[in-house]
């Protein structure tokens, strides 16, 4: 460990109240006499304050999205009746399951293919396989400590993502397809499988994979799943109102890039 890092660790340990009484006293004395330490100390103090503010923004978004979810479930319309019902956690679980099933059924009906409309030109303008996100996943799995580099080459998710990145979509599909049966932890695999299927024009299969992902609260690419679902539905000639509804939802997204591209595609479709 280098000296700089040791120095910094001391500051953070102090700020995070991890020091013993004796260590605190010694550190405070150094702060009074060492100007460089005092300057660095105030920089880290501000850095932690900034991280708190950033974290708070995330918490705010979480609360807001939970409020929005309740709104979509009609909780605020009938909250008096619902409250007495959701007081029981078993009932709450059933409400969640019923709501998820209803959303899935509605999505299938809404997005049922309709051969009359197919704005292929618009699709080509907007469709782009999102490799930035893929990089993020792969870099997370790189052998920097999370993954054992020896067994990395045997793993079908890693290999599938790598094949997708190399634009070898057929191979990506063959690696990722078995993951369809896996639990939620395979959601990124399902997502990139759907994108690979879009690339080989298997749009309906992609739609079938993307719909549950758009309904998965814990999946961090949920918004992106909606975006690709809207595009695949549009390209497959599905009900254009379904596409518009998804785009309208995305145009309200807290991710500014997503909101902006969804908004402009929506404007083109009107």
């Amino acid at each position, binding site marked *: 460990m280098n000296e700089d890092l040791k120095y910094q660790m001391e500051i953070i340990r102090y700020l995070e109240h991890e020091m013993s009484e004796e260590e605190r006293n010694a550190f405070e004395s150094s702060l009074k006499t060492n100007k460089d330490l005092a300057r660095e100390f105030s920089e*880290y103090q501000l850095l932690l304050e900034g991280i708190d*503010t950033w974290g708070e923004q995330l918490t705010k978004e979480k609360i807001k999205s939970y409020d929005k979810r309740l709104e979509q479930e009609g909780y605020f319309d009938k909250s008096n009746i619902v409250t007495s019902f959701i*007081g029981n956690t078993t009932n709450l679980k059933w409400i969640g399951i019923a709501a998820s099933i209803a959303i899935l059924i509605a999505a299938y009906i809404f997005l049922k293919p309709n051969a009359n409309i197919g704005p292929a030109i618009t699709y080509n303008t907007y469709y782009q396989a999102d490799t930035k996100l893929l990089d993020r996943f792969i870099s997370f799995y790189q052998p920097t400590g999370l993954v054992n580099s020896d*067994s990395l080459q045997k793993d079908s*998710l890693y290999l599938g993502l790598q094949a997708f990145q190399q634009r070898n979509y057929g191979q990506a599909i063959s690696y990722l397809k078995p993951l369809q049966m896996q639990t939620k932890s395979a959601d990124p695999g399902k997502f990139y499988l759907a994108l690979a299927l879009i690339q080989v024009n298997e749009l309906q299969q992609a739609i079938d994979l993307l719909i549950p992902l758009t309904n998965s609260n814990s999946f961090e690419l949920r918004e992106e799943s909606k975006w690709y679902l809207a595009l695949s539905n549009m390209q497959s000639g599905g009900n254009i109102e379904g596409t518009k509804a998804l785009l309208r939802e995305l145009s309200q997204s807290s991710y500014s890039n997503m909101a902006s591209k969804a908004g402009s595609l929506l404007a083109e479709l009107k």
Partner: protein
Amino acid sequence: MNNLEDHYQVFKVKDLTHELDERIKNLYKLYFEDVKNHILKNSGSLEDARDLFQELALVYYKQLQKSDFKIETSEKNYIYGICKNLWLKKLRDRKIVSIPDDNFIDNLKDFSQQEIQQNQEKDSLIDLICRTMDQITEECRQIIYLAFYLKKSSMEIAGATGYSEQFIKVKKYRCLQGMRKMIVDSPTYKILNQ
């Protein structure tokens, strides 16, 4: 544990953030109705109640994060206390009720031009830090979020990510060090420190 789950421990990190999600859900389940009724009885609408409840949940969560935080009465009373204060403040802002806040006015008078400028600079720096958080690697963002915002111990993060505890201890400092360097090297920082 199968091969997939064994390798992609990253998804277990969600277990550590799950606690926050559950707290939010429970707050709504337990207290939203009563908060709503209070707002409706006191010149507010359902929309006001929803906005206020979001603020309330954030205030409450921030309090819970403090290591020395203790609720003197019950959670229910504490929540209603926050609710009443926040709503009273809203009414005052809308000039529906007139409550003189002498301290507030006094504090305002005490701010010098120099202090106002210092506060603005600080706000810009905080804004820069937030933007930098969005630019660092996902791995560092996760570790910083868990360690410094959710205040999870290195051992807990190690359990969730599959790293060793020692690795997390060093990694979190390295991430923070890298972040500080990005900030100090940024043009915004240089302008603010001219």
